[in-house]
């Protein structure tokens, strides 16, 4: 029992880490990872939504009629997303400004709906929480890693602290949209190389 919870939790960290292994939810992945801070902020917001919606969907899995399940999932997810949005506005306003439209867009993030449909609606609540937490943390770490590479090369900083000398010319391309694709591609390639061995 305990073992399977751990298994559900850890699969999200490496074996099925959302942006790299499942290649899901790429819209926020590409758009907000201009810096580590943005990436991790977005990851935490998504994790919260993922855990809460997984829990509630799993709790209601026997009550929700199969034919309207997607509508029910969306209502649940949208509720939690709006809660996150309001909370971010109230407590972490600068981050909210940076993430902007991508917070409400968590509603249509494939990972959240995907986990509700594929996992939470078929498993008991504690498993669903473990799954949501694992996936969420995996997502957060991926966004953080991507953000770190892009911020480092594109701005010459990590979390706002300069890492290179004052003579460093920022590689602005990396913080623009094309840089996101290039970075994602390189990290995917790296993960596949490591996974192969």
């Amino acid at each position: 029992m305990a073992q399977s919870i751990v298994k559900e939790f850890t699969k999200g960290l490496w074996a099925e880490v959302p942006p790299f292994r499942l290649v899901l939810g790429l819209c926020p992945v590409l758009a907000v990872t201009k810096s580590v801070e943005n990436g991790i902020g977005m990851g935490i917001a998504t994790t919260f939504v993922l855990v809460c919606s997984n829990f509630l969907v799993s709790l209601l899995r026997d009550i929700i009629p199969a034919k309207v399940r997607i509508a029910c999932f969306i209502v649940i997810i949208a509720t939690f997303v709006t809660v996150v949005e309001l909370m971010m506005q109230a407590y972490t306003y600068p981050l909210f400004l940076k993430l902007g439209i991508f917070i409400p867009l968590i509603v249509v993030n494939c990972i959240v709906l995907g986990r509700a449909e594929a996992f939470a609606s078929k498993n008991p609540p504690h498993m669903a929480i473990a799954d949501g937490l694992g996936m969420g943390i995996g997502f957060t770490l991926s966004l953080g890693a991507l953000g770190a590479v892009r911020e480092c090369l594109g701005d010459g900083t990590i979390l706002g602290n300069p890492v290179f000398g004052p003579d460093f010319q920022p590689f602005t391309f990396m913080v623009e949209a094309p840089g996101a694709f290039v970075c994602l591609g390189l990290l995917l390639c790296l993960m596949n190389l490591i996974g192969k061995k």
Partner: protein
Amino acid sequence: MREMISMVVVLTVLSAFSGGMLAAVKTGTNDKIENQVLKFQKAPAIKLILSDVSNDPLQDRFKIMDQEEEVTFFVGKYDGTPKAITFETKGKGFGGDIGLMVGVNIESDEIIGVAVTTHSETPGLGSRAKDDPKFVSQFAGKTMDKNLGIKKSGGEIDAMSGATITSVGVCLAAQKAQELYTRLKPEIEKQTAQMAN
């Protein structure tokens, strides 16, 4: 039939529950959000413009209905007498709306200064409107009858090189501010006179 009813009931109850929850969160965070907007978006710009006032412009504010919109004015006092106001207008930039805080001396009708509050312009190019004081400093000292367009279109403002659309957006916001101030001048004078007492 039974299935139909259960679908309707579940979806209705779920939506009602989510509506209630959101209303509660919204009410709980409302004041906090308003403060955050003032603190992080408006306050830095206001401070830039009204650097040597004797009061706190964030506290001394009033609202005027202008056509459909409500505009908030922040009053700057010098030695206890209100002499300046700042308010925000918007112009269309390259990546969306640019928010511009405009400070006006209500005795001489001169622009004291302007500062960008929010924008989503290209980092390194259009973002200089906010980060580089050279461009926005051109607006200081201009009166209400000056043409605040860019030089190419017959105005008096030098556009930033490589960021023409951003420059035009800022100019547009400044021109809107001129119109709005001229239109609302009587009302503004009435309100600020009350603040002096």
